């Protein structure tokens, strides 16, 4: 039951909050803090008892901490049985994401302490959001997955829309609609899959069990002959539709424009969650669903996916360089960094995919840290114009130091997590013929990223101190805690990556073999 606990503790806390009278603002904060701390503890427990040798992916039995109950099981007329299960499980792909969610979630709560408007509503939404995100990362039934996936929309809408900046309404609805259209297309594909796969192939039509379990869909022998998705071109169409659903979340060029708006308008903690965890849901969907369920399509489109990854990297970086708003800059840098994930996944090599997953984790921490850093200065100066600052390093040396740390982490300085991820992605994509050319081009990203971060630092922190900002206090204890916790995590993940990679290695390799083996059949990469 530990996974259920992991998911529902925040939700229960939210219910609890409903009962608390809305004057007791501190109580809300502490309850939320408690809830997310418990989550962190539970995750630690998971790591403790996690067996690294088990792969998961398409083998239901090698998932860990599994919970599986019949949820809905009805006879869909002549079509056999419609089965939805409450199916949770963890493997090497979801565990890192859980760690990330718990950690960033906690940080988010701490940074939410500054929220003083409608505190009750805020924390209720926040906790529901937390539950939804956790759920996405452990759900193994497509219906459940989709439920959590969508559940996250509404709290997010209000978190941006109520506690956000001046253009919050626009940003909120844009985020909502953009994600919504993506996920509806996804829903269609899910239903298509549901019709095309049965858990008991060969049974009589009336007895066939059409299940929403992802795991059964990952095993191609469950494919129902003659069904919609047994036709190759329909598989490709379905693949693209579903990919669109995830691409919006990643966000992949050209579906990324909701991100800058959402980030700029969202309050700091929500930006943290958004960049830290939400974006990862998209890429997580790719590894959890797209690759194992549509292996041959994945191989078929691998180069294209990698190409879009590169476009993300370069275009995102250039666009970031062109920004004048600090938060927008970081938002675009997120676009750029998520590109590495696509590139790594497209390479379908152990290093590449490991790097991609690692990038998901590391970018989660780094972007969280970056947004916190921006939040710090925004709280003081109430603007984010890069050119509006100057010489802050003299006034707030500690803050400057941590910001520089975050910047360098983000531009891939060795010994910090970002480097490990990017290095692995490069190694993987370069060593695979499909993506080699892409890898070469994408190295330019390293340069552009360095340029815009250092320029930004130069403009904001160096030079003579702008007298406007004299007398700003340096980091408060709370801010310092958040930054240093993340910083420490980034450093550890950068120096000793095995801590994390060991958790995912077997899954990643299994995933690769799974996809590649499907590729040997159809014309994929050599």
């Amino acid at each position, binding site marked *: 039951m530990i996974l259920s606990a992991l998911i529902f503790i925040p939700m229960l806390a939210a219910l609890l909050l409903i009962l608390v009278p809305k004057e007791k603002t501190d109580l809300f904060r502490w309850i939320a803090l408690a809830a997310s701390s418990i989550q962190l503890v539970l995750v630690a427990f998971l790591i403790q008892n996690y067996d690294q040798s088990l792969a998961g992916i398409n083998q239901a039995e090698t998932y860990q901490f599994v919970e599986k109950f019949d949820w809905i099981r*009805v006879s869909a*007329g002549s079509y056999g049985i*419609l089965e939805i299960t409450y199916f949770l499980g963890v493997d090497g792909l979801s565990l890192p994401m859980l760690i990330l969610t718990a950690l960033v979630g906690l940080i988010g709560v701490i940074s939410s302490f500054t929220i003083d408007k409608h505190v009750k509503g805020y924390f209720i939404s926040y906790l529901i959001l937390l539950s939804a995100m956790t759920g996405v990362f452990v759900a193994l039934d497509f219906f459940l997955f989709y439920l959590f996936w969508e559940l996250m929309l509404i709290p997010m809408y209000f978190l941006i829309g109520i506690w956000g900046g001046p253009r919050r309404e626009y940003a909120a609805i844009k985020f909502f609609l953009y994600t919504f259209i993506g996920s*509806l*297309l996804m829903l269609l594909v899910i239903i298509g899959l549901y019709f095309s796969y049965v858990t008991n192939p060969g049974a009589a039509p009336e007895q066939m069990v059409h299940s929403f379990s992802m795991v059964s869909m990952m095993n191609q022998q469950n494919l129902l002959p003659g069904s919609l998705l047994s036709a190759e071109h329909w598989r490709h169409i379905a693949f693209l539709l579903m990919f669109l659903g995830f691409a919006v979340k990643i966000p992949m060029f050209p579906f990324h424009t909701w991100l800058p708006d959402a980030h700029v308008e969202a309050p700091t903690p929500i930006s943290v969650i958004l960049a830290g965890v939400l974006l990862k849901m998209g890429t997580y969907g790719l590894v959890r669903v797209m690759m194992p369920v549509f292996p041959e399509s994945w191989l078929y489109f691998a180069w294209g996916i990698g190409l879009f990854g590169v476009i993300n990297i370069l275009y995102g970086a250039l666009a970031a360089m062109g920004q004048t708003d600090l938060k927008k800059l970081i938002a675009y840098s997120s676009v750029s960094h998520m590109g590495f994930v696509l590139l790594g996944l497209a390479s379908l090599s152990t290093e590449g995919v490991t790097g991609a997953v690692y990038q998901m984790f590391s970018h989660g921490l780094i972007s969280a840290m970056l947004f916190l850093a921006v939040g710090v200065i925004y709280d003081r100066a109430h603007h984010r114009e890069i050119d509006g600052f100057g010489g802050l390093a003299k006034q707030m040396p500690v803050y400057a130091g941590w910001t520089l740390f975050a910047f360098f982490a983000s531009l891939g300085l060795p010994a910090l997590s970002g480097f490990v991820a990017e290095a692995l992605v490069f190694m993987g994509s370069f060593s695979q013929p499909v993506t080699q050319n892409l890898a070469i081009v994408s190295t330019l990203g390293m340069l552009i990223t360095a340029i815009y971060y250092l320029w930004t630092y130069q403009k904001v922190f160096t030079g003579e101190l702008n007298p406007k900002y004299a007398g700003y206090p340096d980091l408060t204890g709370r801010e310092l805690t958040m930054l240093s916790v993340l910083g420490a995590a980034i450093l550890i993940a950068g120096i000793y990556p095995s801590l994390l990679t060991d958790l995912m290695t077997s899954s990643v390799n299994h995933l690769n073999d799974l996809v590649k083996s499907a590729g040997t059949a159809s014309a994929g990469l050599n």
Partner: protein
Amino acid sequence: MNLDALITYTLTSTALLQPELLVAVGLMLILVTDLFLKKTVQKWISVLFFLVMGLALISLSRQSEVQAQVFSGMISIDGYSVFFKYLFVVSALLAGVMSLFSEELNQNRRRLGEYFIVMTGMVLGMMLMAGAANLLMMFVAIELVSLSSYILVSYLKDDKISNESGVKYIIYGSFSSGLMIYGISLIYGITGTLSLSEMNAVLQNPAATIDPVTLTIAVLLVLGGLGYKVAAAPFHFWAPDAYQGAPTPVAAFLSVAPKAAGFAMMLRFFKTVFFGSATQDGYVPLASLDWVSILAVISVLTMTIGNVTALWQQNVKRMLAYSSIAHAGYILMGVLLLSDSGIAAMMFYLAYYLIMNLGAFYVTMLLGDRVQSYELDDWRGLGFRAPVLAVPMVIFLASLIGIPGTVGFTGKFLLFVAVLQQGSLYFWLALIAVANSVVSAFYYFKVAKILFLKKSADPHAEPVTAPVPAVVLLFVFAVPTIVLGIWWSPLYNWAMASVRMITG
């Protein structure tokens, strides 16, 4: 047949018709009592109403297994019709309770007697619609429902808007019943019978010579009548005006119950008359009578028009009216498939639509009564003034959009399932529906935006509350919206079972 046989037959039929008869008797009862009740104790009439409905429910519950044709094939009683009868009675109950909390209905101690009488009559009519297996019965039933709804819509005599909507409604309505009866007469002429099953037999009989053109005209005319009842494009124009003008509980009631009745009837009509034996999936249409494409076009038109028009509405009631049009469009997808799962999805959707839409209308009514306006602009920042009302509103809106974890999603989900069950055949339809859902998300959440994201005009506006019983009723809507959204297999099984029991 001899007299005894006739008597026994009539008696058995009567016995089988118990729920309808109960309602009918109840109608008389209320009518009479109302005459003797003093103005001061008006409210008690409602108790009687609830009593009748309750009894109807009980007697319905004893008909779950029945499958019969009564009064020489006039009415067929089967799981299908029973399912719908449940919907009608339940919605009548809920709407009835809503009316008690409505201010516009209760202000200056207006007599509620007629109100409940007419409502009872309407329920009776809808029950007959669900069962009608004969054009005669169909027409009578439809007219009964229409007439009562005209009265309900224009119930606020001294309210101009209500009055206007009444006029438009009755003129449009009687016009379309004119169309329908003319169509019926033609069909009767062609097939020489009014009974649906016999018609089907005639149409299936290769020997019979049917003039397709006449048939087409006839059926189109009937379709006009049915389309008007379910407010499907292009017969939907009356709906927004009628709903906006009608008292909110009535609008709520109209948006669910008669719609359901209309669908029930439409489906029985098409399925019984124009389709041959059922096969694995769906039904074999009779030669040269491909209604599916027409219905598909109507469905697309309906959902699209409903949604895009709703985008611009400033009046919540009107917006909900358009939204109900859009939902009719979705439901039509289930109808046109004419597959078991399609029909089941349709019934399912109607049941769930009942909950969430009544809920939405109910909150609308409460808020509207509090701020004396249904204009969105007057609702700014109401969310934080009246969280108890506004948060459930968000739930209903989410459900209308189709966010997972709500009944709305389950309904849409099953519709999509049914559509995609036909393979790639109606994939385009599904895509259009998806696009529409996204559009709908925009205007539904516009309400949420107004409620929570906007600042209210005067910052010191005092919090808005509602009487406890009203709030309780609110949760009667809100809780199922979520619970049934997550746990829905019983209802689905029921719908599925009922589908299998449809008889001509």
